[in-house]
């Protein structure tokens, strides 16, 4: 498979207020094949958004190589980043105009993805008139309707209720199976990663600690026990990583959130 994303020895550090520089990305190597669904799983603050900013070409100050080919890059930010003075539809049109999508295809693209995310009735609403989760879904519509070849997604479903998130995850998978975009999906939710990905990279403190291939056949079912089993193993491996972490000061705090996520999912699975 030919790679559309190639990252080699990527290093990035931020300079703090006191002038000390802090490494946020430490020698990352990454290849993503065309049409692959990659999840990057890691706790808060480990550098996931920073990596995506580099891949999206927004952040150009780094050492090492980062090369992205294979068509337009779509980026779903961690926050919705909608233009508040435009309606939902106006926001989509802004993206479609900017990307110069053929006018004849626009209305079909908009309708399709609005329907998928359940936003068809909200075209004329301003961002402040829709809920946070709806805004996030609208941002997803905006990223999808410009038909990117590579889609970078930064914790897109973490603000959604479980039922909606579940439905959109499945929809995302069917879109992906249909169009075979390359997707880099950042999450701190192990269950979600196991359900979606071909491959999971576990990230901790600015480095990839582990690679997990997901052998589960597609199409996948959200309730597949194999997904559950794998996510447990991933978290367990994660825990071992954290135990081995030499500087445990900041990181262990984030581990419970991973477990919480899993518990919530397990609970959701039993209840629904």
């Amino acid at each position, binding site marked *: 498979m030919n790679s559309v994303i190639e990252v080699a020895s990527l290093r990035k550090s931020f300079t703090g207020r006191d002038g000390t520089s802090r490494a946020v990305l430490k020698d990352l190597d990454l290849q993503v094949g065309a049409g692959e669904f990659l999840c990057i799983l890691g706790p808060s603050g480990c550098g996931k958004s920073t990596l995506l900013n580099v891949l999206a*070409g*927004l952040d150009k100050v780094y050492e090492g190589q980062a090369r992205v080919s294979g068509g337009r890059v779509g*980026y779903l930010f961690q926050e919705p*980043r909608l233009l508040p003075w435009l309606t939902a539809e106006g926001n989509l049109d*802004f993206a479609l105009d900017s990307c*110069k999508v053929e006018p004849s295809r626009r209305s079909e693209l908009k309708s399709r993805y609005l329907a998928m995310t359940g936003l068809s009735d909200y075209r004329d609403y301003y961002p*402040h008139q829709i809920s946070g989760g709806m805004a996030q879904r609208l941002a997803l519509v905006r990223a999808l309707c410009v038909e990117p070849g590579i889609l970078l997604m930064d914790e897109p479903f973490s603000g959604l209720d479980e039922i909606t998130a579940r439905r959109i995850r499945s929809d995302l998978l069917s879109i992906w199976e249909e169009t075979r975009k390359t997707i880099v999906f950042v999450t701190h939710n192990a269950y979600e990663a196991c359900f979606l990905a071909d491959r999971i990279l576990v990230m901790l403190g600015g480095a990839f600690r582990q690679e997990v291939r997901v052998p589960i056949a597609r199409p996948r079912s959200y309730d597949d026990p194999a997904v559950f089993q794998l996510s447990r193993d991933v978290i367990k491996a994660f825990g071992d990583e954290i135990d081995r972490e030499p500087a445990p000061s900041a990181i262990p705090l984030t581990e419970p959130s991973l477990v919480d996520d899993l518990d919530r999912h397990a609970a959701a699975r039993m209840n629904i």
Partner: protein
Amino acid sequence: MLKLLSMVAAVIVWGLLSLTLPPEIFPGPIETARTLWGEVVGGQVWTDLAMTMLRVVGGLVIALMLGVPVGVLMGLSRRAEGILDVWVMIGLTVPSLCYAIMAFMWFGLNEGAAIIAIAVTAAPSITINIWEGVKNVDTRLVAMARVFEASRPAIVRRVLMPQIFPYVMASARFGLGIIWKITVLVELIGRPNGVGFKLFYWYQLADMRQVLAWTLLFTIIMLLIELLILKPIERRIFAWRPQVAV
């Protein structure tokens, strides 16, 4: 409705206060209105009012043309900010009377000098407003637009301008408030007509009825501009904004 009530209340307070002094020194609202009506019917009012309006509008337009670009520049470039901020502060500190005197001394007692003095007085506060606005631009939205391959002009027009526009609006209003006052002053010292000239003229004749009548006229015009022009523009442009409940 509340606005109307508060205005009525103000007029009543004025009436009551005016009872404490003889009417030649502090005329009440009815008497003032009657004097004003006499002036309006006499027809002289319109030239003076038109001249004042001309100076106000001319001054505002030039002040915006000076203040907005400088403010944008200062918001965008650290270096420009470092060089210019002390000048903006100086510009803000110099009393408007000094600008008026300098303009009349250097450019002569003419309309151009009056408008320049008015514009230069108002420009620094407009600059400060715009500068603040540009600094508050949400760069995350700019990043979003860049990811969607928006061209530079498109980003300026569709992402930056809508964010800066509220500040332009606010500074125009703010500038207008300053400009009304400075215009009257400029007319007083260097013009043969206008509301300020008339105020001074009647003051020299010690005719308080006329002084208050012209002040009233001026206030009414100002309110009308605010309510009939500025407010509707603002409401239209900011229709998308949520109502703030405090």
